């Protein structure tokens, strides 16, 4: 069983966000997205579930927040997201974004 290393600050250890055996799991992507929402976007203590809406009634993120999510994911996983695939569907909920990023990373691997 993979145990996630959490620092006292609440940040997840970088080694936990790197690929294991060149495969990035959905859990790793989920942990990264959760950290971005709770730490980078300052929704500390927010319970990030797959059905959490990012826009329109949930977190109500604006486009600057969404751009920050994309660039933060890119920095964490060292992978440039395909911009043209981003849109209302891929960023409607935390789960849809996690699925999209996981799929992106899987196709790279």
């Amino acid at each position, binding site marked *: 069983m993979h145990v996630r290393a959490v620092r006292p600050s609440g940040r997840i250890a970088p080694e936990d966000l790197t690929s294991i055996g060149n495969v990035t799991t959905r859990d790793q992507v989920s942990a990264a997205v959760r950290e971005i929402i709770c730490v980078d976007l300052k929704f500390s203590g927010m319970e990030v579930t797959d059905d959490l809406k990012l826009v329109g009634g949930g977190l109500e993120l604006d*486009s*600057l927040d969404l751009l920050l999510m994309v660039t933060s994911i890119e920095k964490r996983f060292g992978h440039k997201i395909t911009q043209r695939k981003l849109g*209302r569907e891929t960023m409607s909920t935390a789960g849809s974004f996690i699925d999209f990023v996981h799929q992106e990373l899987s196709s790279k691997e």
Partner: protein
Amino acid sequence: MSSRSIEAMLPHRPPFLFITESVSTDSDRAKAIWRIDGSEGFFAGHFPGNPIVPGVLVTEALAQTAGLVVGCRCAGSERSPRGFLAKVDLKFPAPAKPPCHLVLTASCTHEFGALYRFDVRASIGDATIAAGELVLSVPAADLSDPDVAPGRSGATPR
């Protein structure tokens, strides 16, 4: 690029057009120069006897350099090339003192709806004066999509 060409790409005009010369511009990056001779009016107050280029003006000059890239991208499209500064995250490792030639570079890393994110740098010789990122918001012909308009969905208090 001549000053007339620069004015064709940017809506800014003196005394608030800080790009003196465009060295190179394409749809991904731009390099420009702001020649500062010390006679600029703001030095009378910033600071008397100790002229330093205000960081906010360096920021504006970098935003204008990024605007040249947007101008290139929007050429021939329905999108207005007139963007607004939406976000800035810069560090200023050293002050700029006149006279100097401030070399400005802007490289577009992301186009996200109406937003254009840039890595930017201002330097004098080998010395970095400012470096970091900025985001321009460029109004689209159709802003009905709330996903591409910053702030349109409202900010949740946090």
